[in-house]
């Protein structure tokens, strides 16, 4: 199965989770997602997702000067974002339970 296909639907939740953990700027969020194991996710997808969540009101943003380079735009989660994340957690938990059962049953049938 194509991991990037799977990821597309789950990227909103993953991004919200990372930002909920701690505010971050674009590249920082990217690094943390990668560190968590989402190595297939494209840079542009993450920046685009951040902007979209921001426009939808799930994220807030503020600019902070940086010692190393240009000013950084940090993203933080809003109440609306938290609600969206909570809902995504439930949906995902249910979805993954169902799918895990399904795939395991398939394995047993085959065995």
């Amino acid at each position, binding site marked *: 199965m194509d991991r990037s296909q799977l990821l597309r639907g789950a990227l909103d939740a993953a991004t919200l989770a990372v930002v909920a953990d701690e505010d971050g700027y674009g590249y920082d969020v990217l690094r943390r997602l990668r560190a968590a194991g989402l190595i297939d996710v494209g*840079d542009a997808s993450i*920046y*685009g*997702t951040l*902007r*979209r969540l921001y426009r939808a009101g799930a994220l807030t943003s503020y600019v902070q000067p940086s010692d*190393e380079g240009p000013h950084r735009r940090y993203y933080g989660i809003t109440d609306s974002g938290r609600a969206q994340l909570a809902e995504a957690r439930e949906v995902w938990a249910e979805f993954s339970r169902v799918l895990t059962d399904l795939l395991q049953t398939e394995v047993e049938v085959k065995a």
Partner: protein
Amino acid sequence: MTAVPPEVTVYLAAIRAALADLPAEEREDLLADVRGSLVEAAADSGGNIAARLGPPEEFAAELRAAAGLQAPDEPRPGFRELLRRLTADPRVRELRRLVPIWWVARAYVAVAVVALLAGTGWSLTYPIVPRIGSGAWALVLIGLAAVVSVWLGLTRRSWLVAEAALVVAAIPVAVHLSHKPVPPSTVVYIETAAYQQGLSYNGVPLNNLYPYSRDGHMLHDVLLYTGSGTPIDAPAGVPDPLRRVLRTKAGKPVENAFPIRYFDPGTGRVSHPDASPPVRIPRIVTPPLRSR
């Protein structure tokens, strides 16, 4: 503030161009995130941005899709755009591997078109080889041209006008090569032309024939025929008034009578009817045939 590396600037400019249809504010917000990250990413990876992130157009498309922004209404792609997409297609780019073949081919075309313009001959054995001086010299010339051409290709020197001229020049060369070479005219034809009218012996023309009887007497006015009954004529090419030609009662000349005799000029007489070549008739012991 650290400076933005030039490659990041170039990459960003390409993304900005690809997002030109978005509202300026939206576009600049997106680019602001990307810029900061690209600077850090460049510092982290140190390598080529485009190699890591892919072409900026694709990056922009992914950015646009993830941000939920409408792709611009695709205008019908113009010819230049279609051409650009075609040349950018990896499958088409793969064809670039074949370009060394063209390097060699254009060298040949360059030499061949000069030969065509100069109107030199072409090798009969190997019709694709022009004869410049000789076929061997032409091969040397083509080889040198190929070396130069490949060198130009490898050093990525390109002069579009010359390139286009060679493509055009390839057309008359191809037309020339597609024509079957004229079959070589061989000595066989010359021998055919050497066939003699009239009498000959082993290919040597004969002026006259001298028949003798078995007992060594020269015979006169012997009429000779072939096996199919054709008179073996010794026609006088240019009528020779001195030749003694036998005639029928109707005045028709009989030209298969030998030996041919000639009148002495002004006399109408043959002074030496028995003049003969220096032959010695051998003594024949086989009994003579008897006519019935």
